[in-house]
Structure formats: C-alpha cells, structure tokens
C-alpha cells in the first residue's frame, strides 16, 4: 500500500503544488487548508507523514504540532515544517515542537522529496 502524506497549507496553490511533488514521488497525498481541518484530516486518514505550514490563520503550524503531540494516537506521526519563516528561532521552535525537518520556502522539489524519503525509508 502506498504511504499517505497529509499536506496542511492555507495557500491553496502551494498545497496543490506540494501534493503534486508528493504524488510524483509515488506517495498518496491528502490536503487541508487550515489547522483545525488538518487535525481532523490527520485523525481521519492516519497519514504516515505530515507536511505542515507554520503561518496559518487561527491555529498555526506550531499549534497543530502541539495538538498532534498531545494526542497519543497521532503523536508518532512525523512532521516536516514548510515555512516562509527563515529565522533560526522559527527553525528551533519547529524542532522543539517535534518537527523532524524544516524546509524554507521556496524549497527545491528534490529537497522536499529527499526529506520525505529520509523519514519514510
């Protein structure tokens, strides 16, 4: 069975783009456009990996990550943060919040796929 990856990004064009990259590497992609919907999608689809944007209205990426880590059934899903924030503090906060990887936008397609493969291999 193909591994499932959940993409959570409030920018629809970017979420779609990320999903295309994910599918091009042979994975199944599910998208969500805000934090709450993303959390529900995680509960529903039980993805193998989540690609998570940081700056989103209402519930941001850090909040989503914390809620995932608080849920024993979802806590083990690895997270890759994708963000336009490039400050080291954001990077550090992301890693503290339980992220396995942090990619700055705009990222290279290869970079994204390499990061996904390094986690799912």
């Amino acid at each position, binding site marked *: 069975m193909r591994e499932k990856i959940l993409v959570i990004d409030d920018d629809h064009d970017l979420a779609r783009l990320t999903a295309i*990259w994910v599918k091009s590497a042979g994975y199944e992609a599910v998208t969500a456009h805000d934090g709450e919907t993303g959390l529900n999608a995680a509960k529903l689809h039980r993805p193998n990996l989540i690609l998570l944007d940081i700056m989103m209205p209402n519930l941001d990426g850090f909040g989503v990550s914390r809620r995932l880590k608080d849920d024993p059934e979802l806590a083990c899903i690895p997270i890759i943060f994708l963000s336009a924030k490039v400050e080291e503090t954001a990077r550090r906060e992301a890693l503290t919040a339980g992220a396995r990887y942090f990619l700055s*936008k*705009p990222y290279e397609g290869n970079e994204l796929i390499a990061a996904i493969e390094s986690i799912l291999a």
Partner: protein
Amino acid sequence: MQSRLAAIVSSSYDAIIGTTLDGIITCWNAGAERIFGYDSAAAIGNPISMMAPADLAFEGPAILEKIRQDQRVDHHETVRVRKDGRTIDVALTVSPIKDSAGNIIGVSQIAQDISERKCVEVAMLANRRALEVANQALAEKNEQLSGLYQTAQRFVDDVSHEFRTPLSVIKGYSEIMRRGLAGPLSQEQTDFTQLIIERTRDLAQMVDDLLDTSKLRAGSLRVDRKPCDVATIFKAVRPSLEGRLAGSKIQWQERIEAGLPLVFADAEKASRVIVNLAVNAIKFSPEGSQVVLWARVGRLGEVEIGVTDEGMGIAPENLASIFERFRQVGNAPTTKGFGLGLNIAKELVSLNLGRISVSSEEKKGSTFSFTLPVDETWAIVGGLFGHLEERRTPAGRLALLLVTPHEASVEELRRHLACSAHPGDLILTSADGQSLVLLGYSTKPDCWHKRLVEMGSKQQQYHPSQKPWAFVAELVETWAYPEECEAAGAAMLEHISGVRVNA
C-alpha cells in the same frame, strides 16, 4: 602689633569696613575704595546702607540686628551698588567688634568682589541649559531615527516573508512543468521554463540576501557555534546546490584533506557561505569547466574551506573592494543581483571567527576561501581576538562568565544562550561539562548584569509557554580592551584553561 594689623587691613585686596552699631562707616580701607569706588573721605561718616540697592534695603538692618545679638554673618552673597551706579556681586562676612570687657562696640564687614565668578557661573548655567536642550533634541532625533530604522527593518523582514509564498508557487509549478509532470513540453518550452526557474531562484536568493543584510546590520543574527566536522557541512550544502548544478554544465568536485580536525563553528552559517561562494562560481564559469569545493588545514593550523573555479576571473583593480556591499563580481551580462552576496559571506565568516579571502587571475579563474577555528580553546579565543581587533571595536570590556544551569541540561542552556546572546559572544563548555564559559565584549561598563537579565527575558519572548531558564552566572573576570589586549589575551587563556581543567 596694632600697626601690623593696620598694615594688613590697608593692604587687603578685599574691602574691610568698620561701622558703628547704627551702620555709620568709621573705617574704610583701600580694598573698599577699589570695590565700591568711594574714597575714605567720601565714605567715612556716611551710612553703609548707601551701597545697598533699593530692593535689598531690608538687609542692612537685619544684619545689624544679628550683630547686636552677638551673631556672625558668614559669606552672605548679595548685590551692592558702586559709586558709579554699577551693581556688583559681593560676598559679605560681618562680625561684631568688642572692647576688652566684651561689650559690642561696632561692626566689622569684609566684602569680597565675586562679580567675575558670578559672571562665569551665569555663563556656565546658560551653557548647561543650552547643552540640556541640545541633548534633549538629540535624544528625540535618535529615538525618531531608531523608530524609522526599525520600521525599515520590519518592512524588509515582512517583504521577504511575503515574497516567499508567490516565489514558491512560480518556481514550483515551473519545475513541475519542466519535468513534464503536467504533460509533455517542446524543447523550446522546456528551455523557457528553465529560464523562469533560474530567474526565480535568483530572485529568491536576492530576497534571502536582503533579509540577511538587514539582520546582520541590526546585529540580530544569532550564532550557535559548536564542534562540527567539515564533511557534514559539505553534505548539508548539496541539496541547495543540486538544482543549480542540474541547470548548468559544470563539473562539480569535492575534496576534503584526510584527517581534517573538527571545527568550532555555526554549521548553518558556514553552509550558507559555501552555497554563496559556490553559486557565484557556478554562475561565472563557462560550460564544461570545473568547480572544486575543497577543505584543508591552513598555515596557522586553522581549517580552510574554499571554492575554486575556472571562470573569467576578476580584474586586480576590483579585488580589493569585492567584499563591499552592493558590489558585483565580474560583468556577466545575464547575472544581476544586489551585490550583497559576498558581503554577507564576509559577515557570516566573521561571525564564525574566521577570515575570508580571494585570489584570482583574469581568464584563468578565482579561488574564494575562508577559515574556521579548529575546536581548541587557543584557536577559538584567538579567533575572537582577531575578530575584535579587525573590527576596531571601541574601548570596552571583555568579560568571562561562568554560567551553570539549574533544572536544565548544559546543552539546553547552551542552545538557549546561543539564541539570546549577542552574536559576538563566545560560548564554550567547561571541561567537566557542568557549566558554560561565556566570553563577551561590551562597551558599556556595567552591562553584564543587564545582559544576563536580557538573556532570561529573550527566552521568555521566544518560548512564552516555558518557564524561564534558571541559571547561576558568576562574573569571573573582566579585562579592559583593546588597550590591554595582549595581557588580557594571555590572562584569559590561562583562566579558561583553568576553568576547563579545574572545574
């Protein structure tokens, strides 16, 4: 005795006046004549009140009343009128004259002309007021400028962030099209899409450069130096370069000298310098030529990392200013930017306590290289000194603090200090692994306590949900710098070695 006293009175520079208890002048010396303008003939027999200005007429009777009660008046500063009508400032000392039985029989007044001193005082007061006004104006201007500067910086930060999402969309979809993931493209369409990708990548780089420059100028870029190996740094730069290399026809090579020691550096900053230099080399190299990323031990035992290309080279007259802001390397017609890249590289190398250099020959190629200190106390502290000297920092104090965590691991505290300390501060781990040694430089003499408080509050700013770090910081030693640079360097090394060995 009497004649000696009379001689002293008559030759005194100050006015010495005798009066009756009613204030009638009985004695008038040459000093009084000089100060008040009346000769003794004109003064003696007249009331002393003739020299008091109308608005101070009440003073004389009050003073005489005190004298009658056997009291003195010491250094009473007031104003008197000269014979010519000019007012002068005087200091009066008034005391009773007694007979041999102790009865008060008269009054002695000594008046000192203090007009000149008063004039100076008034001028000084006026100057001080003027200075206060100028100072206030400067402070207001300063506040205004710093507000404007912050606005400009915030603007650059916001713009950089806002640009990233559309850039991601343009670059990502172009890449998908070029790879044929959205259907087949003609050769011409593939070439055009490649152009879009490359120019978007340049634009993204410019946005990064602007953000970096803004942070470097504001001193807000944080440095997290720790022992790391060069092979790992090389590995980290590969993903960023793969896209560039795929679009070019460059032969890329990596060479690491065998047995290279660990370096003490912020690996992320070192990676960015390498990417920066490598991207330039790729841009300015002709198709089929070679670009080599290499690392070796340098002349002074430091690690040297460099990028050598076989490109067009740089004219000797341009070499000296190549690391300045807004300079462009060479004159390639298709490569445009802000010319910030090499300046940023230089600043980042400096944050890593290293030096950057370039050697080049026109039409043959260029080598850009930088140094990193090896993971040894002498090399790291030497690097800090070189850095301070090179920057010609104003006189200040170098301080050594021993920071011991409380309810946290040393590594956690190190990470925290790295993100809240000043970029120039050096953080080392003590030999026993129980404490951190923080070496910092400041131009403000009493800043160390403040700086520790600041470190604590910055952590709150970044991680408000966590409780503040508890740590014990002890100011071990401070040295003046740069006047005592050499002695301080030796003492510091000894001290750190002590901390490292004995702690």
